[in-house]
């Protein structure tokens, strides 16, 4: 019998962005994420209030999944950013902060929503094409002949997460390891399509960071000491390996919802076990020496295999299966209904036992060249270790992205301020051009105006469908949003400045007065430009005369200290603007409250 409950009507919010509750929530989300941003960002302690595990983090990929809300708009933004993070790993916080600031600026400007949306879209196009230009002032082309830029890029990713609590030396060590591991995944001499290998990250708690290491081959944790004893007495010849992805626990877990009918006298368990034993007999006959199972292996089978000199590793987990197939060349056996074909077996060159802290692991070395390696990440406690592991994986992803697009963007907020200055300058050029047209039209009546520029101007204004003043207002909001992301890097009450030559980002500590300002500014955020006598600064978010930001002089001795992933940041910029536009476009929110 079903119970009837009266359905409550759906809840409809008209113009959600005019609703103060919604705005408060968006602002809270913005503040929460803004305070996490950058190397001096603040951490968040995520827990469930009933004594569950506490996660201390400032990483968007860990934090955002925990931030579910009752407000659909918040969830919309969250899922857009998470989607970006899952594809690019980096720049999640950048995208989120920019998106939320754009929404706020659009509200503050008082512009019609569709005007804001169009201006944003137009400026996004302007930024994207500028960033991809040859002479873009904030892009660095990566040189694969030297590992220096790669290490800088990795270091920027690793150093931006304060929950790792890394000293400078430790951050550098980890960056070098990450680059080394990445290089190991690039196969050296395989013809045809190159397929990148895999890095398996193993965390070891309670050891100093500097003990972290990269090893070729794979480390697999072994739980029982019977196998370990066998390995110690084993000679190191190439060993035949079989990989099982099917469960060998002796149950029928893949039965689904079906029903089996059996006679009472039938002992299903022992019948299944007999089948499995038969299976193992074949494996032993085929001279397999290493038996790896993703899931549980029945104790009787373990005993049988061990008695026949086979080393057994079970419960390796799904994450290790792909690296294991890459390393051994074996094909995972997923069914027990046919005999194992000979080509499904793989080989390993040697086995040895490695101990890291409390963990005892089996080291599998590949028989042939293989692009699989293991990164052992050590840290003093669990919280820092899990953050460091996440960051290392993030760094690996960022490095892979450089293979598609071998460039990087200046970090430390310099790209944002530079872009803002670029947009302002370009827009001023537009508007002065319009004035010129009008002037010429009135005075001379019959002149030749550079038609190309005119076209551009008219196209812009018709595309945006707004007046010139509206356009300028929208542009200002966009630039301010970009600059406020750069300013969000500062958390200790310091000031954010930009110089009037290259439009890079500079930070001024809170306790420095304006008089001795010039001494305390030595390098900009990315480290590419340094203080020079005739340099002028202005505070961010103040009006400054427009200028064309000059690209920093490419002196080979000066290298940027902070680099961001080009691909990730460009996509983050797009995601941020498009999400903001989507949110600005929402007219009604209808919630089913049942």
């Amino acid at each position, binding site marked *: 019998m079903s119970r009837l409950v009266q359905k409550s009507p759906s809840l409809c919010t008209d113009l959600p962005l005019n609703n103060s509750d919604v705005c408060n929530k968006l602002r809270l989300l913005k503040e929460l994420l803004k305070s996490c941003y950058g190397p001096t960002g603040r951490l968040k302690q995520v827990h469930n*209030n009933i004594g569950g595990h506490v996660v201390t983090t400032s990483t968007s990929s860990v934090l955002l999944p925990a*931030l579910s809300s009752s407000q659909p708009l918040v969830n919309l933004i969250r899922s857009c950013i998470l989607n970006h993070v899952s594809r690019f790993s980096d720049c999640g916080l950048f995208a989120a902060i920019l998106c939320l600031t754009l929404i706020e600026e659009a509200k503050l400007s008082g512009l019609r929503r569709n005007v804001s949306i169009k201006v944003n879209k137009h400026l996004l196009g302007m930024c994207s094409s500028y960033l991809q230009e040859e002479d873009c002032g904030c892009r660095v082309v990566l040189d694969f002949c030297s590992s220096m830029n790669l290490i800088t890029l990795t270091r920027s990713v690793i150093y931006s997460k304060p929950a790792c609590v890394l*000293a400078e030396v430790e951050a550098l060590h980890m960056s070098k390891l990450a680059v080394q591991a990445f290089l190991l995944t690039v196969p050296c001499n395989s013809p045809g399509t190159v397929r990148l290998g895999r890095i398996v990250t193993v965390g070891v708690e309670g050891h100093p960071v500097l003990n972290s290491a990269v090893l070729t081959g794979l480390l697999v944790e072994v739980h029982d000491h019977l196998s370990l004893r066998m390995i110690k007495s084993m000679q190191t010849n190439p060993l035949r390996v079989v990989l099982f992805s099917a469960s060998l626990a002796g149950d029928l877990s893949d039965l689904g919802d079906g029903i*089996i009918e059996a*006679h*009472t006298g039938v002992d*299903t368990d022992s019948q299944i076990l007999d089948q499995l034993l038969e299976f193992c007999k074949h494996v032993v006959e085929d001279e397999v020496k290493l038996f790896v199972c993703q899931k549980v292996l029945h104790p009787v089978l373990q005993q049988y295999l061990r008695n026949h000199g086979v080393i057994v590793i079970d419960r390796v987990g799904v994450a290790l299966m792909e690296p294991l197939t890459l390393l051994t060349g074996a094909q995972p056996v997923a069914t027990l209904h046919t005999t194992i074909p000979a080509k499904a077996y793989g080989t390993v060159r040697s086995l040895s036992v490695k101990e890291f802290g409390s963990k005892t692991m089996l080291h599998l070395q590949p028989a042939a060249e293989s692009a699989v390696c293991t990164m052992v990440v050590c840290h*003093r406690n*669990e919280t820092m270790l899990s953050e460091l592991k996440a960051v290392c994986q993030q760094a690996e992803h960022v490095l892979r992205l450089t293979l598609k697009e071998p460039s990087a963007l200046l970090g430390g907020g310099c790209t944002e301020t530079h872009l803002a200055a670029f947009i302002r300058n370009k827009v001023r050029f537009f508007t002065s051009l319009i004035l010129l047209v009008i002037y010429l039209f009135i005075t001379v009546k019959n002149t030749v105006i550079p038609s190309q520029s005119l076209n551009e101007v008219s196209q812009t204004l018709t595309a945006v469908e707004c007046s010139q003043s509206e356009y300028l207002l929208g542009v200002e909001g966009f630039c301010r949003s970009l600059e406020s992301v750069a300013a969000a890097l500062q958390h200790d009450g310091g000031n954010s400045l930009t110089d009037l030559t290259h439009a890079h980002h500079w930070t001024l500590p*809170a306790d420095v007065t304006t008089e001795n300002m010039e001494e305390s500014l030595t390098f900009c955020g990315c480290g590419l430009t340094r203080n020079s006598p005739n340099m002028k600064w202005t505070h961010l978010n103040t009006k400054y005369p427009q200028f064309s930001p000059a690209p920093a002089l490419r002196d080979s001795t000066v290298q940027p200290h902070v680099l961001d992933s080009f691909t990730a940041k460009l996509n983050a910029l797009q995601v941020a603007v498009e999400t903001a536009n989507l949110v600005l476009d929402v007219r009604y929110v209808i919630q089913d409250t049942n």
Partner: protein
Amino acid sequence: MLGSTIINHQQHVGLQKLSALAGLAHSFLGPNKKYKFIQDDTSGESVMVCSCFRILENLELTCSVGQLIYETVRAHQKVHHTGSGCLLFLAGVWSRVALEFLHRGIPVASIILAMSEGMDICMDVCRKSSVSIDNLDMEHSQSSTALSGLQLSKEPIKDTSQAPHQSKGTINVGHKSLKASAQRKIKLSRHFCEPKSENMSTEFQNPQPKLLDIAHIAECLSHGCVEAMNLVVECSRIQSKSSQQDSTCSKFNVSKVMTCVLPGLPEEEACTVQGCILLLSADQASVAHHLKDQLLKVVLIDGDLSGTYRHLGFKRLSGIQFMSEDTDLSSSSKEENWMEKVITTLMNLEVNLILISGLVGEKVIQRCSSHHILAVEKVKVSVLNAFADSTGAVPVTYVTQLSKSCVGAGVKLVIWRDLSSYKRKSSLAVNISTGRNIELVTVVVTSCIEGKLQALEDQFWTCAYRVHHALKDRALLPGAGVMEMLCAHHLQNQAERDPPQQTKAAAANPYRSVVLHHMAEGLIDYISTVMVNTGKFSKLQARTAVNQQLQDCNKNLGGAAFFSPLFSEAEKKDRLISSPVRSTNPPAVKVYDNLSVKQEAWRKALDLVFLVLQSDAEVITGIDQTEAVQKNLMLL
């Protein structure tokens, strides 16, 4: 639904919580510990605790900082079994220090930078002042031969010509002419231990590594727990004897030690027994009497001994229907079938003893007993492994797996003690061992007060692990507050000086000096709290005494500070030992601390402070609206 609370307004609530919770640790510091009662108001139950770990375990803290503290302490306790109090206390003082800096408006990044540097200084001082246990041992043997009431001449460590030797880490253990004081050399690093034998002159080279005297090391590490430490020494003696057939005390394998808790007996009856002491019920007792003093055959079962038990990861079939023509077999007869099979298997293999890591039903035990088979449940896996090693038995999960090759032989059962007069659940304690060659040692912890047993057991493990870590590190730190004093002294000195050149980031940190000074204050606070806990000092007296010592130290060093830091340390140590802090102990015994444990505890304490210091908000998941309003949370 999700709530969020901002921790970091002007007052950093997280740090305040940390320092408040760390207050719990105060009375657990030092050798004179005081018990605390934790009472549950709703159930009226109470627990008596005597260590930081146990108090946190019983408090069920729900705030995120509390959770973080508990996780940190638990992780430390799991590995080290000692030093949790030190960890929590220092986390508390240093969080207060950090809070103070925040009030002064020092940026978080600068605090972290300077405090990390301070920690590096402390770690360095610890490394440099560590004493090799080999040297400790020598000193002891010499001093015990010269025990005719004469004061040992404490000369300063030799002349400067020895300095290069020391820096290479050579330790001339076999040098005849060295005086007692010269043997107590301070190693520069424990990592320099390895090339020792190469550098030693062949003339005096000892082909065998010198056997350590654990009894002496244990004495230095007892920290007031003399009874518990005696049990540890006894364990070591038994283990050494079983492997070397002599009466020295040079081996200690903590993984082969187990404890057995016996309530109702006076505390003096605590003892150490070779073999494995198991408590048996009345049913089992009769079998035990039958089996005593025979050589038994044993099988080891890793899991439960029951017909329905399946190994870990086995999923039971849900969609199965049994059809039958005749009357359905009831589950009891199924059980009976299984039982029959088990007994037959065991009888065929002539098994007398089954050790089971999981549970066994009452019925099964009785049934086994009737066939003169003793089944003992809840045996630790480490014990199973020890028996597997010494008898050749192979642990199995199911009885059906058993074959001749899985059965171990040569186990002896001795009635250890009849407890039937105490009217307890267990009526008999038996000792199961494999003769003399088993390293397994059981420590029987007894007390008339049942609530105290846990604390006594913890105390034993603390002592056992102190010795274990000392043997693992091969080095110790001067204890009784000397190490903290030294570190405080170095921190203060460094604070006055300019930072070393290699840390150019630190050069730009204008707050370095003040932060280092405050870190030193934290350590001084630690020493004075330990002194207060002895009951002989007021807080003020303790602080003045410590500050006086530090000042003296500075004065004596003068310009020679750079010249011989080792000398000053050695001398200071002598002086401090004679200070009234340890006057309760006989003066001959020096107090030492574990090197790695102390370093780890300090590091973890500071890491905890860093994590909390950098946190500015708590994100609480799965909270509902009313709760959020009550707690004044912001809802997202």
